[in-house]
């Protein structure tokens, strides 16, 4: 009863935050738009088991659902925290002395709903990108149905996983946004590595093409846009609903349902001890050190406050940062230096949303408001400070690129250094903007540390 009320009120809460809902929809539409490769490309952009995946409604659905599963944990947790201010919910949970599994169930239902909501708009974005594909076979509605069933058939698993992470992690770390994002990122990587690629096979890689495309052995892979063959007959593909009657299809459906229920049960089991009322904790350790740093940073005015806000809590991060910058220095100029740079910036980026929140809603605002400067010069100072600190992290790479005379590389770095603080300070004006920024920052971080960001030549 309590869980259902909680889920219902979380949905109501989200609906009453139109700006956050709109921002989430825009984000999901954009995600859908970029999920699919360019339909007009004259080459096969994706392969599956060695076969080129060429546009058909089924392939579109497969890619959309599969990609959503891969990113759903990040997307789900971030969308939940944008749509529903978990810090405030957390203070409600604390006073009710409610059973944790009751809260976890309510959060899971809400998170699952948010996951499906995101999937719907990602689906919409993908549809915008390649709507003409649906009509290529002459049966637009039939194509849409195939697209829909495959997107949701796979994506529902991602929504369940996202709901589990949201209900367990968000509940405990609602008041520690930086830790929440760090934990989400680590869980995402672990789940991606251990489950999606591993034996559970959430993304359906083990699900044979023979079930997706019954004619896989003799089908014409040249159909679709590639080869300008839009008017040729489409490859026959099954809707999810037709699978129970196909060899291996029922097993596929059963495993997906089992994963969803498994995720729900995992959330209930992992819900942990009861949530206690919030209280400001008195920390007694490290006081002399904190005192020294606060006296030191006070000498640098607002810049000192910003540095203090970013680095005071995660002191361990300074050690990791030093390692990353050292690694970048040693490998300056090599592609691996971009990975180190991404790691250094990632540590820093994780603190920005908090900084922006503090600035817009809390301590920093009350600190600077009595000044004669007004908010915009302060925002400018914050932006400049962020850019300056990012430049320091990128210094080895700037020197290496400068010495090599790689102007394009320097522009590539400069754009990031300039864009990140602008986006951060700009988004901080919006409710939920900090969360959207953190999503973008996290994705950029992932692109860099996964080695996918290449410095332009020249």
């Amino acid at each position, binding site marked *: *009863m*309590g869980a259902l*009320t*909680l889920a219902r*009120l979380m949905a*109501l*809460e989200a609906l*009453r*935050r139109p700006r956050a809902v709109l921002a989430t929809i825009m984000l999901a539409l954009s995600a859908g738009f970029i999920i699919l490769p360019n339909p007009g490309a004259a080459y096969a952009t994706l392969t599956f088991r060695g076969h080129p995946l060429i546009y058909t409604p089924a392939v579109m659905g497969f890619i959309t659902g599969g990609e959503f599963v891969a990113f759903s944990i990040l997307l789900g947790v971030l969308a939940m925290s944008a749509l529903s*201010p978990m*810090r*405030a*919910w957390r*203070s*409600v*949970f*604390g*006073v*009710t*002395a*409610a*059973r944790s599994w*009751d*809260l976890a169930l309510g959060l899971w239902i809400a998170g699952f709903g948010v996951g499906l909501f995101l999937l719907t708009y990602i689906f919409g974005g993908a549809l915008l990108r390649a709507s003409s594909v649906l009509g290529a076979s002459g049966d637009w509605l039939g194509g849409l149905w195939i697209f829909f069933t495959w997107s949701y058939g796979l994506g529902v698993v991602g929504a369940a996983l996202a709901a589990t992470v949201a209900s367990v992690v968000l509940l405990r770390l609602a008041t520690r946004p930086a830790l929440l994002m760090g934990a989400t990122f680590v869980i995402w990587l672990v789940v991606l590595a251990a489950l999606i690629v591993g034996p559970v096979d959430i993304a359906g890689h083990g699900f044979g093409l023979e079930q997706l495309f019954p004619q896989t052995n003799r089908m014409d892979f040249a159909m679709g846009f590639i080869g300008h063959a839009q008017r040729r007959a489409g490859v026959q593909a099954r809707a999810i609903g037709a699978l129970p009657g196909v060899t291996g299809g029922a097993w596929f459906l059963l495993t997906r349902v089992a994963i969803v229920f498994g995720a729900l049960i995992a959330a209930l089991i992992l819900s942990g001890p*009861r949530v*206690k*009322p*919030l*209280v400001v*904790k*008195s*920390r*007694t*350790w490290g006081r002399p050190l904190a005192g020294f740093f606060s006296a030191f940073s006070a000498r640098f005015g607002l810049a000192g406050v910003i540095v203090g806000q970013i680095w005071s809590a995660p002191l361990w991060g300074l050690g990791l940062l030093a390692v990353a910058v050292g690694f970048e220095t040693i490998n300056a100029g090599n592609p691996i230096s971009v990975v180190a740079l991404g790691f250094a910036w990632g540590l820093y980026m994780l603190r920005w949303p908090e900084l922006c929140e503090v600035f817009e809603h809390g301590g920093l605002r009350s600190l600077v408001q009595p000044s004669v400067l007004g908010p915009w010069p302060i925002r400018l100072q914050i932006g400049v400070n962020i850019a300056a600190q990012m430049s320091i992290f990128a210094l080895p790479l700037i020197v290496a690129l400068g010495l090599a005379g790689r102007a394009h590389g320097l522009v590539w770095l400069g754009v990031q250094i300039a864009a990140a603080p602008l986006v951060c300070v700009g988004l901080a004006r919006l409710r939920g903007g900090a969360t959207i920024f953190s999503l973008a920052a996290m994705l950029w971080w992932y692109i860099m540390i996964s080695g996918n960001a290449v410095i332009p030549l020249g």
Partner: protein
Amino acid sequence: MLSVEKLERREGRLQILRDISFEWPRGVLAVIGGNGSGKTTLLRVVAGAAKPNEGRVSWNGEPTSRAVRRRGKIGYGPQERNLDLAITLREFLGLCADLRGLSARKTLIAAAAEELGLVKQLDERLANLSGGGRRKAMTAQALLGASELIVLDEPTSEVDYAASRKFWNAFRARGKSSALVIATHDVELALGSADAILLLKKGQPARLASAAAFTIGELSAEIGEG
């Protein structure tokens, strides 16, 4: 019966509470002390939100940290009032009632709102309430149902004087059937409405006596020294 025996509580290396013992069967017990005297920590332990490092805090023989999990035993209104939510006060109270497993929630909400004079604000969104309004919301959720022990941490701070008087009248009425432990800086109202006052100084009980045994001057002087 609330029973506190040789309670000690530390936060890290900081000793917040030391050697606190008292019993409270029923009625309104006001906990008064200066800032940082340990009122909030004492109330957290009494409400079962934190465990003592040493000693024992129990309600009818059961540790409060366990009793708080049982329906209708303990209601707690902490200082924290971060309620920046778009749900209404009515929805908030309904959620609290549901999460506590209380039945007949409509009746309970109406009764709590009537008791604290919140009827007109029931359909206001929490985020739109003033600081005092959110404080009232936190107090109202603690009063839902007929909890045997009600623990309130500064329920009338940020609340206007007229509402504060109404609150204390409500507390006194509740005190006939329940035990209330209330931390407050409203010395005057506490003197007029509480059955007894526990004076805390530096985490230790300086004095526990009937409210009639204190005067404003004496309490002010004691708080100033603390």
